[in-house]
């Protein structure tokens, strides 16, 4: 599962059909819950129900074989035990119930109130996703680009050069920091993260109390030798009292294999108590203050970022040539959310920042937001038109999104989905400032919403028809004026709109029997 998930994140050749993404990621718990909330269909987003049922049957199998972060931690721990000269043993440790329930509470509140930026940092799948996207994928691309020339010289063309565009290092640094911290815990203490911080682990742990199958002691044959506890990466087997803390057990079955007396077994409950249904997690506390706080912080951070930004631009402008001193700063009312997001609010509430779309995006136009959405959408993808523009016929992000934050669109739907509107700033345009030909924006426009109309001295200048503009950013990307003084830019729509279909009239028929005009 780890390998499959990783391969999807590192699929630089778009080898895998979009359906695969769906089936591999279907069972990821938090994305599935959010997707269910988004589309309200168990068929497309029933993964979490399946996981709950599985947990009721056999315990936290999810944590040991489905969760990519869990498996990643096992890999780290395996290396740690293999590398260390001294034999490493786990010891039974007490649980940290207070911490666990606080994190679970925060997560539930965050999901209910659509605080995506909190979910982003707690959902284990999303943490793993970002690790793949910002750390492992660049490594894969680098490896590919090293091997490609060798293969091509040997006459093999199945490999080709890939450009990697990650304009900001912050996502890399943050993902690196988080994974190093979790990796450190895994190296020393096995699944400590899963049993202390991870809200999915805590929730499934509670469900596991009622599982049908559990790891059980046979009190008569057990010699309390402690071998089981020494291999338990959850540190949850108390040999002294012959007890297993089922809320922490991730059903890895290491203990079963090592028990010399076969005193441990994975067996069904002796039905003395009836099975209870899944306990509904209690809604949170201190909701109003929390929300208030969040808004205040969002405003504060956005303000600081804007202030800092303005200041830097002001300095930059002083160094620009004279004819560009009068350029106007691009001020977007809204950032541009990916096609299928429907609205920025909706998107921010659902996206967990797992970055699968960022890595799947063939043009790298999807980049993690820093300040664009404010604090609320930190690390959620936005359309970064400085890095690239959105391919007109591509619908990949919607196909791969596991949470439903980006809903799938057909090509035809996407061609009419307006993410934003192009805004032309004549004062910044080289046709105006330099009096020379340009038209790069119109050239790249897939719907010809940006068209060139007669200007003076036989020159042509752009004109925008925003009724057919879909906000793909081709014009903004192609504009030769440096950001943030682009002569054309896309102002995001807070709520995505329906664009009109471009209509330029009948096809021109040419008589191929006509004479040459020269």
């Amino acid at each position, binding site marked *: 599962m780890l390998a499959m998930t990783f391969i999807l994140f590192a699929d630089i050749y778009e080898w895998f059909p979009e359906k695969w993404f769906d089936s591999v990621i279907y069972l990821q718990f938090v994305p599935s819950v959010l997707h269910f909330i988004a589309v309200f269909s168990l068929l497309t987003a029933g993964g979490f129900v399946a996981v709950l049922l599985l947990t009721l049957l056999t315990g936290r199998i999810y944590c040991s074989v489905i969760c990519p972060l869990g498996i990643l931690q096992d890999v780290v721990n395996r290396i740690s035990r293999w590398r260390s000269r001294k034999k490493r043993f786990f010891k039974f440790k007490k649980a940290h119930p207070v911490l666990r329930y606080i994190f679970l509470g925060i997560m539930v509140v965050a999901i209910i109130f659509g605080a995506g930026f909190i979910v982003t940092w707690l959902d284990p799948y999303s943490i793993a996703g970002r690790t793949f996207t910002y750390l492992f994928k660049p490594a894969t691309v680098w490896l590919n680009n090293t091997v490609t020339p060798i293969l*091509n010289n040997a006459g093999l*063309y199945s490999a*080709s*050069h890939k*450009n990697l565009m990650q304009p900001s290092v912050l996502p890399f640094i943050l993902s690196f920091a988080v994974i190093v911290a979790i990796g450190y815990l895994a190296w020393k203490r096995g699944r400590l993260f899963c049993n202390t911080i991870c809200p999915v682990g805590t929730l499934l742990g509670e469900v596991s109390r009622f599982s049908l199958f559990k790891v059980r002691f046979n009190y008569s044959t057990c010699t309390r030798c402690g071998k089981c506890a020494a291999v338990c990466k959850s540190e949850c087997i108390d040999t002294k009292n012959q007890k297993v803390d089922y809320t922490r057990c991730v059903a890895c079955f290491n203990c079963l294999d090592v028990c010399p007396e076969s005193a441990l077994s994975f067996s069904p409950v002796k039905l003395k108590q009836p099975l209870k249904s899944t306990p509904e997690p209690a809604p949170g506390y201190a909701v109003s203050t929390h929300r208030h706080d969040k808004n205040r912080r969002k405003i504060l951070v956005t303000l600081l970022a804007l202030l800092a930004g303005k200041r830097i631009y002001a300095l930059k402008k002083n160094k620009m040539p004279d004819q560009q001193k009068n350029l106007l700063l691009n001020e977007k009312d809204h950032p541009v959310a990916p096609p299928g997001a429907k609205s920025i609010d909706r998107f921010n509430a659902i996206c967990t920042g797992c970055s699968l779309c960022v890595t799947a995006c*063939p*043009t790298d136009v999807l980049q993690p937001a820093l300040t664009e959405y404010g604090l609320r959408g930190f690390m959620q993808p936005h359309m970064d038109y400085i890095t690239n523009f959105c*391919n*007109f*016929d*591509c619908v990949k992000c919607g196909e791969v999104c596991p949470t439903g934050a980006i809903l799938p669109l057909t090509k035809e739907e996407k061609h009419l989905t307006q993410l934003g509107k192009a805004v032309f700033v004549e004062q910044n345009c*080289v046709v105006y400032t*330099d009096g*020379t*030909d*340009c*038209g*790069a924006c*119109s*050239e*790249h*426009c*897939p*719907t*010809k919403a940006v*068209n*060139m109309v007669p200007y003076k001295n*036989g020159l*042509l200048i752009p004109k925008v028809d925003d009724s057919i503009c879909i906000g793909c950013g081709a014009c903004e990307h*192609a504009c*030769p*004026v440096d950001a943030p003084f682009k002569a054309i830019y896309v102002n995001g729509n807070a709520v995505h709109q329906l664009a009109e279909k*471009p209509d*330029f*009239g*009948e*096809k*021109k*028929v*040419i008589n*191929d*029997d*006509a*004479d*040459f*005009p*020269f």
Partner: protein
Amino acid sequence: MKRRDFLVTGTVLGVGGTLLPNFGGLNAIGLPANNGEYDLAAVRGGEVTAMYDKALEALGGIESFVKTGQKVLVKPNIGWDAPPERAANTNPQLVAHIIKDCLRAGASEVVVFDHTCDQGDRCYQNSGIEKAARDAGAKVVTGSNESFFQEVSVPGGRSLKTTKIHQDLASADVFINVPILKHHSSTTVTLSMKNLMGVVWDRRYYHANDLSQCIADFLTYRKPDLNIVDGYRMLTRNGPKGVSEDDVADLKALIAGKDIVAVDSAATLMFGSKPNDINHIRIANEMGIGTTDLDNLAIKRIKMG
């Protein structure tokens, strides 16, 4: 130089020609020449490969451009993620046919690339050119990797003094330029000269520093040895990519020749515009890179329909 020699006689003959009633109906203007010695060939009404064969016959065959053991660069337009029917990219059949012709003439290697505008791999795939060219025996390399580009100086450049060109242009002995005849929002038409923006890395520099001048400047670095304008399908509006198949007209034409300015002038007339109204063509003519004056060229006009 040969052209200069019979310029005078040519003019006389040309004038004489226009006076003669119904002088072939087609060769109303221009100089006469024997087959194989024409400056420019214009073909109409045929299938794409047959038109190429006729044109090359008039220009002296591919052997007069490609010698045994030479490395050839065939540079089509693969700029856009669109199928051949949309006429945003050069006809893949034509590209494949040229490659085979070069290999038949003894070329050691034929290379194909373009620095695309849309996403590179999708353009290569959906244009049909990558597959057609490989099947024809060419080496198809990416134009979307900056490390394949090297800096060169542009000796006669006014706005463009240096630029980064693809290594496979630098190492090619023969340079064959195969654009498609298209409308273009920035420059009205895009033909042979504009197509050469696909061999340089930094197109943004062109746009920011007098596009038309830069397009003309580049030719002082290197001119293609042969230009073949694919006018089988023509994008009549919304170029250079087009919005739908309604933007495409079946022109069924092909224009080929050595003089890039002359070839573009003829193609511009086919499109329905005047060469001197297209800034980069006008500038190239003024800089002496080629001529827009078709009257003083030997033009072979062939109607196949």
